[in-house]
């Protein structure tokens, strides 16, 4: 029993705590950056897929194929492809960049589906009414569609963000010093594996549980305030 206490004291040395906190920040940054860029790109894709202009037909096809493909490839495989494909394009990209790019590629596909479902939830009559009021396409989107769509978009988008906080654990394999990698380093420093990885599990929990709660809260609030 005293052995465990001693180990715990060694684990929570100032050095280790700062190291784990920094790694936690990196996990969060990686997820935020990838998901934010993925959200913008996903929204563009969703809008493109719903365009009706005939000259955009090939773009629509490419967008559809992109979404279908990238939702069916494991994050680990995408990480490997980006890791080796980025060399010829940007030889001095950091590991962090590579991980963020991989997250962005995947997030784009998933978030375009979520945003698309939100756009589809707005009744067509609303868009027609906006047209009748002589609102342009952009203004229709800005003042009519998005204010109604975001209630449908936000809860699943947050759930998706939580999924990605967890998926970034795989980036540890490439050497990005995020939470999981920090766990491995702790164990290499002599912390008992159960203690080290247990702490890392708790850190992940501390990151994603508040988000999960926020998502559930928003889902309830936005669902009741509809109409």
């Amino acid at each position, binding site marked *: 029993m005293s052995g465990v206490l001693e180990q715990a004291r060694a684990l929570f040395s100032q050095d280790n705590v700062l190291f784990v906190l920094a790694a936690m920040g990196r996990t969060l940054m990686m997820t935020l950056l990838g998901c934010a860029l993925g959200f913008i790109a996903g929204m563009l894709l969703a809008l493109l897929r719903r365009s009706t202009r005939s000259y955009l037909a090939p773009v629509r096809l490419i967008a559809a194929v992109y979404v*279908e*493909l990238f939702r*069916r*490839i*494991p*994050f*680990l*495989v*995408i990480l*490997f*492809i980006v890791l*080796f*494909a980025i060399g*010829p*394009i940007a030889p001095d990209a950091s590991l962090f960049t590579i991980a963020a790019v991989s997250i962005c590629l995947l997030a784009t596909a998933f978030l375009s589906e979520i945003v698309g479902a939100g756009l589809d939830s707005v009744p067509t009559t609303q868009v027609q009414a906006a047209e009748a009021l002589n609102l342009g396409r952009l203004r229709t989107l800005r003042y009519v569609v998005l204010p109604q769509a975001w209630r449908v978009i936000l809860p699943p988008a947050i759930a998706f963000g*939580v999924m990605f*906080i*967890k*998926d970034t*654990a*795989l980036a*540890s*394999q490439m050497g990005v010093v995020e*939470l*999981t990698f920090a*766990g*491995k380093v702790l*164990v290499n420093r002599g912390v*008992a*594996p*159960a203690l080290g*990885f*247990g702490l*890392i*599990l708790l850190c*992940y*929990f501390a990151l*994603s*549980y508040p988000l*999960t709660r926020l998502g559930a809260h928003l889902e309830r609030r936005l669902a009741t305030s509809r109409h």
Partner: protein
Amino acid sequence: MSYQFDFGPAFGSVRYLIRGAGLTLVIAFVSFWLGAVIGLLGALGKTRGGASLRRAIDGYVVFMTNTPALVQVYFIFYGLPSVGITLAPLTAVLIGLVLNSGAYLTEIIRAGVLSVPKSELEATEAIGLTRLQSVRYVVIPHVLRTVYGPLVNFFVLLVLGSSMAALFGVEELTGRAINISTTNLRTIETFIIVALIYVALTLCAQLALTAAGRRSLYRARPAKRSAYV
């Protein structure tokens, strides 16, 4: 861009990769079905059990769904030996994935059970069905229909998630890709082919499962001849 693609070496090992895909499917299958057993018990406990049981199940679900499966397996694989339990990599991965999918499936099945409207149960009482009959003919079909789509999606996610086993040296699809790319040095090509195998695998699984579901869940029953004609 000076990179020259050469798919030759990777194409040469497609058979080896596809046999790895077999193990991928086995891992996904085992974690799905054992997870479903946990999920069924969990959903039952959460809808029927006492307060303390419900809280325990909640704790399990919330903890498993808010932490990465990879770190859970690290914990099992590297942490358990200190209490004298040493597991093979595949076993550790399976235990991790089963516990993980058990948590998600608890939530999915519970949502299905809760989706049965009270009025439907009252209606079965009104037309004189016994309890067993109402479960057999009303509750189960209803739950299956609401739960089937999410279950198929979850199976696809499990297939993708099982790639994590590669990091423990399990020779499933991704593991085999890592194996051959370290010798043929055609990593991009190898992983592009592996990505396409994953796409084909999940697409086939999804289409087949959806078709099977449509046939058995929404089968139009031949109308029975009315008794009074």
